[in-house]
């Protein structure tokens, strides 16, 4: 694998607070990666450092083979779309022109068609745009730049579900046409989950999980039914979360269930409901904060 982004031993401290704690990470070139975690987990700090907008306290960061900070050769080849991006007091069209001068792969045709999709007009003053429309502008610039490395940090504040679907569809379509490295941080995990090839979960400044997104589907299952049956079924399995109401129990088990296990659950009268990626991330709290946790087997044991 060729890494577009390579981070080793990265720590960022603010006074007495540790925002990133010894983060090491490789992001494969040409993949779409989801950067997931709770608010305050360290996602934005990581993205800002990758974009050269902030310096690490210690550790190394390479983007496209070189440290990004104050490195125009790298910065021209990467794009960072921030949540609540601030713009100077100019019109939409002027912002697009400025971006087109800076980014060598700028695609004006793509920008136009995205503008139409989001119903954005070039003559409109940016300061008069709603929050959602400002997010849409960030998305238009972020995609039309066609930068080799594109970082999206919760790019859709104020966008409704329909506009977000436009973003996902256009992102996939343009990525299919021009594969490139995309890192998207989001807390709307379930609606974005299928876009990702890889996911990285950060919790309290540490990487707690780095895995192929598809391999996480069905990796944990909620088993519910009569207490005795649940106990029998989950004996010897790794269990995350046990809840009980009267004679009914509900337990999250970790590990893929094969066809024989499913058949057994059915014969015991148990319900099996797979955890969504979002629910898995919620359980990130319970994962040991160690790099070995990247291996889901044994997590929570």
């Amino acid at each position, binding site marked *: 694998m060729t890494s577009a982004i390579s981070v080793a031993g990265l720590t960022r401290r603010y006074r007495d607070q540790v925002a990133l704690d010894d983060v090491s990470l490789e992001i494969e070139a040409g993949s779409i990666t989801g950067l997931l975690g709770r608010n305050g987990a360290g996602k934005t700090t990581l993205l800002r450092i990758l974009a050269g907008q902030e310096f690490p306290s210690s550790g190394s960061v390479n983007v496209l083979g070189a440290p990004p900070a104050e490195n125009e050769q790298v910065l021209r080849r990467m794009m960072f779309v921030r949540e609540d991006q601030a713009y100077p007091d100019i019109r939409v069209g002027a912002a697009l022109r400025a971006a087109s001068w800076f980014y060598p792969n700028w695609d004006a045709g793509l920008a136009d068609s995205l503008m139409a999709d989001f119903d954005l007009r070039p003559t409109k003053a940016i300061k008069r745009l709603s929050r959602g429309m400002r997010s849409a502008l960030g998305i238009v610039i972020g995609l039309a730049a066609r930068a080799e490395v594109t970082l999206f940090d919760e790019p859709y504040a104020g966008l409704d579900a329909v506009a977000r679907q436009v973003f996902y569809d256009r992102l996939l379509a343009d990525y299919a046409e021009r594969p490139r490295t995309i890192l998207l941080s989001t807390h709307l995990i379930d609606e974005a989950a299928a876009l990702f090839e890889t996911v990285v979960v950060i919790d309290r400044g540490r990487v707690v999980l780095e895995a192929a997104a*598809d391999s996480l589907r069905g990796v944990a299952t909620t088993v519910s039914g009569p207490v005795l049956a649940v106990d029998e079924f989950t004996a010897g399995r790794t269990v995350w979360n046990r809840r009980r109401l009267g004679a009914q129990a509900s337990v999250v088990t970790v590990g893929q269930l094969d066809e024989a296990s499913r058949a057994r659950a059915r014969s015991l009268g148990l319900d099996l409901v797979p955890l969504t990626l979002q629910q898995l991330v919620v359980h990130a709290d319970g994962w040991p904060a160690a790099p070995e946790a990247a291996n889901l087997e044994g997590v929570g044991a």
Partner: protein
Amino acid sequence: MAGLDEGTPLFAQVAERLAAEIADGGLAEGDRVPSTNELAAFYRINPATAAKGINLLADDGLVEKRRGVGMFVADGARQRLLAQRREHFVERYVRPLLTEATRLGIDNGELITAIKECGHEQFSDSRGGAVV
């Protein structure tokens, strides 16, 4: 993620959908299989995931690559898929049926009567005449 479920890897579901289409004859032998990007756009999934699904079928020899043109349904693919399904029929359909029947206290005689009646309705609906 149009119409796919949560608990199974997406690539496996893509492969399964394509296999079902081949088995049903919707995709005939020699037909072009949708491309990775077409599948990605339709299911709203990562193209690498879609590619993995197609590759699963290619590994089984159900689809084959024609250089520069795309993937096509292989000769004999439909017959092989139908044979596989017949092999799994008892395990997937009959055994769960018996399990539930046992739980409800339905004996074999009642079960066979129910199957006959159900088959009678289904066949007379679709063919306009009783078969069972």
